[in-house]
């Protein structure tokens, strides 16, 4: 943060800094963004922070990167992690965990903990079942589900209310108070189950009145194999490619300096590029041979480059003299070591016995160690090359292009070696394609940086347009993924892929996260939540009803526990007395992985949902990768540690004091 070192210098005169500020306010959408950028040239001590840098300080960014990283990792090391069946599997796990993690993160932002949240999920499910269970031998009350749903919900809210009131009245740490609630609930679950049914688990059947109505609401399923749509892939590819193009365009828009007057000269070039992309996709879709595919890929790469340059000629300010390549000793050394390391990694990859794919991904086998060695060497090599590229950027863009070209080349070489030695088609095609795309991206981006001026000042119009494009692009990509997951083609059905059953639990999860994110970011209640967690005394002084806000937060957590209890009850139609016990720490961990500050006052609902996704993915991914489960907690520990360090770094960036 040295570039933002300042005194009260930026309390500059109002007239000096008048222009452009309304626009900043307009463009600012998200909550925690630290936009110190709006100062016009007036303050030379204030460095421009590009929109990417500003996006990077979002509190949920760590979790988002984590989700992408963990997903990519397991996708790369297992054969079926990316399939619809396994996506459904981890999403389902993430749903119940995530609903609670989101609620718990709200409470943690408000500066409190609820250790009864885990036991509460089971308690609500058991209460519900006991209410509707037939009376029989001292069984439940046997009332209709229509009444049991609101009654159990009211009970949940009451538990939350009592938790909140007890914390308020006793002024004890919520840690202690809710620990007591935890034990009480745990005891009640066991005691009531045994007392009323003589069993340690409670069961209900579909005979309960109202079951037919409520079952689809809490446990409805979308069975993928029953939804055949043969032209699915046309739409899938359309949305995916459209989304990817939008992402690329938006990033350019936000990164480069826009021209005063647009030049029409770029249109033919842009058109040629677009046509090339079209031809390449058509080629890939219609041909099957290796050579044809390689040709199509080459066409695609060149077309993307041409198209983007065309875009730049049309819209962006060209660089007059990019300067020649000037490699310093430092850069050279890093390139040399980096290339050597990548070479060593390639050599190491030859030692892997790819015929023996079974043991390939078990850590702590000879094979596994070879893989780890290869990954470590490769990782170190690419890190050094990235470092060299960053140093080169300080010299000039041309030098960076040179370094990036070397890096892209190394990635391509690596990809080919892996492809040559891999057995499974997944690694031969999909992983290989990812390598090629990464290399292409690095190369094209560097070329663009040489040809066009990178923006170093504020352009809110461009940022707003770019954000819109980015949003739409991401939406299209997500839509593409959803289509692919919800529908099956006849070919897939014939190939006997594992069926996937998408449960309505996921919708509950998404909806709950969305509602909570909205509450947190857009309502007074959300503002007060941050306030009571960040500085309870200060918020009381300005009239925030701190106690009420906290009580409401406790009620949100127990309300979420009720929802999860319902989902569990309808899913299993029987619950163990111990259901949910001890899970409260998983909720807290998911929230922390998602960027929630343990001490309160900072965090997001969306981050917590991503944290839950990370935990669910690692659970399922480790099984998918057929790792020895003994090592599972090592992996989880490493994830937690990395997440906490990353979040700490991001928070420091976002809130660095500039005095």
């Amino acid at each position, binding site marked *: 943060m040295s570039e933002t070192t300042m005194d009260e210098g930026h309390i500059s005169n109002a007239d000096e800094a008048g222009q452009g500020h309304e626009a900043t306010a307009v463009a600012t959408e998200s909550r925690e963004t630290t936009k110190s950028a709006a100062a016009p040239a007036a303050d030379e001590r204030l460095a421009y922070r590009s929109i990417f840098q500003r996006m990077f300080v979002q509190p949920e960014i760590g979790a988002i990167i984590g989700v992408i990283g963990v997903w990519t990792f397991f996708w790369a090391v297992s054969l079926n992690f990316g399939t619809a069946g396994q996506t459904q599997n981890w999403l389902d796990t993430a749903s119940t965990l995530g609903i609670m993690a989101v609620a718990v993160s709200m409470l943690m932002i408000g500066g409190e903990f609820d250790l009864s949240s885990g036991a509460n999920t089971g308690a609500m499910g058991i209460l519900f079942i006991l209410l509707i269970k037939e009376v029989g031998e001292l069984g439940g009350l046997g009332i209709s589900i229509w009444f049991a749903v609101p009654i159990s919900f009211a009970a949940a809210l009451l538990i939350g209310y009592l938790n909140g009131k007890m914390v308020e009245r006793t002024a004890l740490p919520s840690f202690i108070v809710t620990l007591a609630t935890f034990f009480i609930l745990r005891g009640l679950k066991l005691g009531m189950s045994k007392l009323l049914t003589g*069993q340690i688990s409670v069961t209900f059947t579909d005979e309960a009145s109202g079951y037919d109505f409520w079952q689809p609401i809490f446990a409805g399923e979308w069975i993928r194999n029953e939804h055949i749509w043969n032209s699915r892939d046309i739409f899938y590819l359309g949305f995916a490619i459209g989304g990817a193009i939008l992402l690329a365009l938006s990033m350019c828009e936000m990164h480069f300096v826009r021209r005063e007057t647009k030049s029409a000269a770029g249109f033919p070039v842009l058109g040629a590029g677009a046509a090339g992309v079209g031809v390449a996709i058509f080629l890939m879709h219609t041909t099957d041979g290796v050579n044809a595919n390689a040709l199509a890929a080459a066409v695609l790469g060149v077309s993307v480059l041409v198209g983007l340059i065309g875009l730049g000629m049309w819209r962006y300010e060209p660089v007059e003299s990019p300067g020649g390549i000037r490699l310093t000793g430092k850069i050279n050394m890093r390139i040399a070591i980096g290339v050597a390391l990548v070479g060593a990694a390639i050599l190491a990859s030859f030692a892997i016995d790819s015929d023996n794919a079974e043991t390939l991904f078990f850590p702590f086998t000879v094979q596994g160690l070879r893989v780890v060695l290869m990954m470590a060497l490769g990782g170190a090599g690419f890190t050094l090359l990235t470092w060299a590229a960053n140093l080169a950027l300080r010299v000039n863009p041309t030098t960076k292009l040179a370094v990036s070209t070397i890096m892209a080349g190394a990635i391509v070489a690596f990809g080919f070696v892996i492809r040559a030695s891999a057995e499974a088609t997944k690694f031969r095609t999909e992983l290989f394609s990812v390598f090629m795309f990464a290399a292409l991206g690095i190369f094209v981006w560097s070329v663009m940086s040489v040809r066009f001026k990178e923006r170093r000042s504020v352009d809110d119009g461009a940022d707003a347009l770019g954000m819109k494009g980015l949003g739409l692009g991401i939406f299209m990509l997500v839509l593409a993924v959803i289509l692919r997951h919800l529908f099956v083609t006849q070919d897939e059905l014939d190939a006997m892929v594992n069926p996937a059953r998408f449960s309505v639990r996921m919708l509950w999860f998404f909806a709950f996260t969305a509602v909570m994110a909205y509450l947190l970011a857009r309502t007074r209640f959300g503002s007060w939540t941050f306030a009571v967690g960040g500085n309870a005394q200060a918020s009381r002084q300005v009239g925030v009803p701190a106690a009420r806000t906290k009580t409401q937060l406790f009620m949100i957590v127990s309300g979420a526990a009720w929802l999860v209890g319902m989902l569990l009850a309808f899913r299993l139609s029987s619950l163990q*007395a111990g259901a949910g016990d001890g899970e409260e720490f998983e909720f807290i961990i998911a929230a922390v992985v998602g960027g929630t500050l343990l001490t309160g006052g900072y965090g997001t609902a969306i981050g917590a949902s991503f944290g839950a996704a990370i935990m669910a993915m690692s659970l399922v991914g480790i099984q998918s990768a057929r790792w020895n489960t003994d090592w*599972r907690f090592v992996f989880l520990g490493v994830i937690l540690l990395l997440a906490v360090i990353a979040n700490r770094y991001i928070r420091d960036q976002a809130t660095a004091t500039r005095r």
Partner: protein
Amino acid sequence: MKKMMRLLALLAAFTLFAAACSSSTADSTATGDDDTETTDDGSSDDGGEEEEATEEDGGDDAGDDAGDDAPEEVDAAQGSDLTFHMITHSDDGPFWSVVNRGMDAACSDLGVTCVWVPGNNDANVMVQGIEGAIGEGSDGIAASLPDPAALVPALQGAVEGGVPVVTLNSGANDYQEIGALTHVGQTEFIAGQAAGERFNAAGVTHVLCGQQEQNNVGLTERCGGLEDTFSGTVTTGFMDLDADTTAQQAAINAAMAADDSIDGFLGVGPVITLSGLRAASDLGRDVTVGGFDLTPELLGEIEGGNILFTVDQQQYLQGYLPILQLFLFQTNSNTIGGGLPILTGPGFVDASNAADVLALSEAGTR
């Protein structure tokens, strides 16, 4: 001077406390059979009929029953003076509640006082329970041994102090070292072996052995026994805790999806067995499922033909027999088993006997 006074006061308080303690034990022995810490539904053993079980909810009834059932008037009178402690690593789950009922039944049958001390999977709590029992002058201790290193010294202390000890459930390897009368339980390895034979007979080629706890020796031995006798491949893995059935099912689902050759699943507990069944049906795979222990839901699935078998270690006996052994030792100096452990399992429940067992299980004795 002041210090002296305080010391004296403390001493006085201590003496009073000790006196109170001893008088309370005297009380409990005097009031005999109905002043027990046993649960009320303990008498449900007779016939296992649920209506009777729930109607008989008075301690007095239990006492009367005991009087009727007792073989000799003299023995019953002798027995009523006895107090036995059962210290287990129980978490009050479905398994241990049946053990508890077995103990209650034995105690009301024999007319002795029994104290149920659940250890909640915490060896430290169990050691405290054992020492507490010795301190109270217990007439016999029945204890499970999930963690021999921690518990063997404490139980040896009991034996040296003249308190007879019977180990139950886990502890087959250590009961002799303690000097216990016998061990009542199931050898997990043998149970696993028996499960392996069942899978062989069913023509399964690759079994996934799912564990619901990661550091439980007994569960690992069950999978080990399976590996020993099963002729095909065995993959063993930890599939998350019973408390989180969602994650448990997801883990099994992922493990099965990762390997198409898996056509069998052995859950080493009842909850995980059901999770395995659900995971297999979600995947649309034809997987032969076997399990351990009993719950009504599990038995229902066996009856419905979705689960092939479950290994039953008849834990009711693990509650009943140790008390019986302690009683016979105290009243008649008998020992059962000839120094060898008394095995309560493996028994099997499959489609042939599921209906019968289901009725008993709902009554809480199987």
